[in-house]
């Protein structure tokens, strides 16, 4: 945590963990998909479930899913904006197990489009205090990142050399890896890496990575703490991997 995270964020009230943190988790979930979602289900756990309305958690989650940042003056109008955008919003409560009290699972789905972009993406994370967050599950893979850096998510086949290959591309792009987590569902099966780095990979490197054998899916998630450099979706609501 940096000093500017302690005196900060600049945010729309009323709660850093329930509003700003919630917005950031949903913003990460939004950037884990390319196309705008048409339906999103927020499953709230613990304190998130108990005080969601009072702390504006519900509004903040919807705002993040629309690509808004925690200090956006439009945040309080997120429900109306979702309606305009054709986004169905569902809230649900569940015990997600032995996790932080402020935890949410965000499952978003879109209309099936070209190239399978109507995908369903699941992101589970916690708001751990002062607006800081931690994501520990993407699409059922137990990974770990904080949104304090730019994060590359790569789903790939669990084979020797794939991680090295991806790391090589990052190195060639002069990217610097801060943390790397890897999880697989079974030996030789599907695996996912979360790689936190100091800046976004270049588009050329991302395009190249997408064409690498055994890499099935990748997303470049923005750093969400400073609010600098979070890409806006284009006019069709697309973000770029």
């Amino acid at each position, binding site marked *: 945590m940096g000093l500017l995270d302690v005196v900060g964020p600049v945010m729309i009230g009323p709660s850093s*963990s329930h509003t700003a943190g919630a917005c950031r988790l949903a913003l990460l979930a939004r950037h884990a998909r390319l196309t705008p979602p048409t339906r999103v289900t927020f499953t709230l756990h613990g304190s998130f479930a108990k005080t969601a309305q009072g702390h504006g958690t519900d509004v903040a989650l919807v705002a993040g899913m629309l690509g808004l940042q925690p200090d956006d003056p439009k945040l309080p109008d997120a429900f109306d904006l979702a309606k305009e955008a054709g986004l169905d919003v569902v809230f649900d409560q569940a015990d997600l197990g032995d996790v932080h*009290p402020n935890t949410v699972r965000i499952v978003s789905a879109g209309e099936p489009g070209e190239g399978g972009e109507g995908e369903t993406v699941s992101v589970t994370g916690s708001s751990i*205090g002062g607006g800081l967050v931690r994501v520990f599950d993407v699409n059922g893979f137990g990974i770990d990142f904080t949104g304090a850096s730019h994060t590359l998510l790569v789903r790939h086949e669990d084979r020797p050399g794939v991680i090295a290959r991806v790391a090589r591309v990052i190195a060639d792009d002069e990217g610097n890896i801060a943390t790397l987590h890897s999880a697989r569902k079974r030996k030789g099966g599907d695996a996912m890496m979360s790689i936190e780095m100091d800046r976004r990979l270049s588009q050329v490197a991302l395009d190249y990575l997408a064409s690498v054998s055994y890499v099935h899916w990748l997303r470049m998630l923005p750093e969400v703490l400073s609010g600098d450099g979070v890409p806006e979706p284009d006019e069709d609501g697309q973000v770029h991997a």
Partner: protein
Amino acid sequence: MTFEEVLAFDGPASTYFLREELGADATPGTAEYEAFFAKLRDRLAAMRASIDAGLETDAKSRTGMVGWNAKGLHEAADRLDAPLLKRVQAYAMAVNEENARMGRIVAAPTAGSAGTLPGALIGVADHLELDDEALLLPLVTAAGVGDVISRTMFIAGSSGGCGAEIGPSAAMAAAAVTELQGGNAHAAMHGAALALVNTIGLVCDPVGGYVEVPCVSRNAFYAVHAVAAAQLALAGLESFIPPDEVVGAMASVGRLLPPELRETGEGGIADTPTGRRVALRMAKR
């Protein structure tokens, strides 16, 4: 990083924290340094904007429980002849009433405790007619104190009750005011510890689950509390228990609190006949 390391530093605490944050770039003129201070100025400007906005309006929050307190106090006669006290309280409540209205505020360290630091620091500075530039290094010290505390426990009412939100905010504010008035690292850290030790055990019991009651008035009280701690530290008084040990005690008491008293809105003043009525009324909406 521990308070022990900061206490031993010969100079202002902000110098120590800036070196920790920026390393070799911790000197004016480097790109890193200038970028850091540009952001800090934005934070300070946003704090002041939230005070101004909050003092100007008496618009009610969504629940109707708060919204007019800051303006009411600000415009009231000073019957106790204590202008500093009145200003600090009004500023702190202004920020938290803005927060309750879903206005734009600076979490410091959290939104629920956002009024304490600007209430104390900007309140004292305006009382003494100091320029805003003089507040930047004290803000660094405030952030450093919060950073040290966060290494021992999560700063969130859900993890340690209000002691884990207003406690750090009051400690940050006490250190900032101490540095503003010339206190060195040793004095500022003891100011922080004196503030913190007197917040241990506070429960987080928001009525209806809303960050309004007791949060708004609590920020006014703990902004004054922070100024009082700075007063002692500037006079050379110290916390008998070393600052790091105070943080340890705060964390262990926070963990001992039952879940009902950690931001769930199910205990304390939230669990009174009036508190339960508010919760019911809002749930029906």
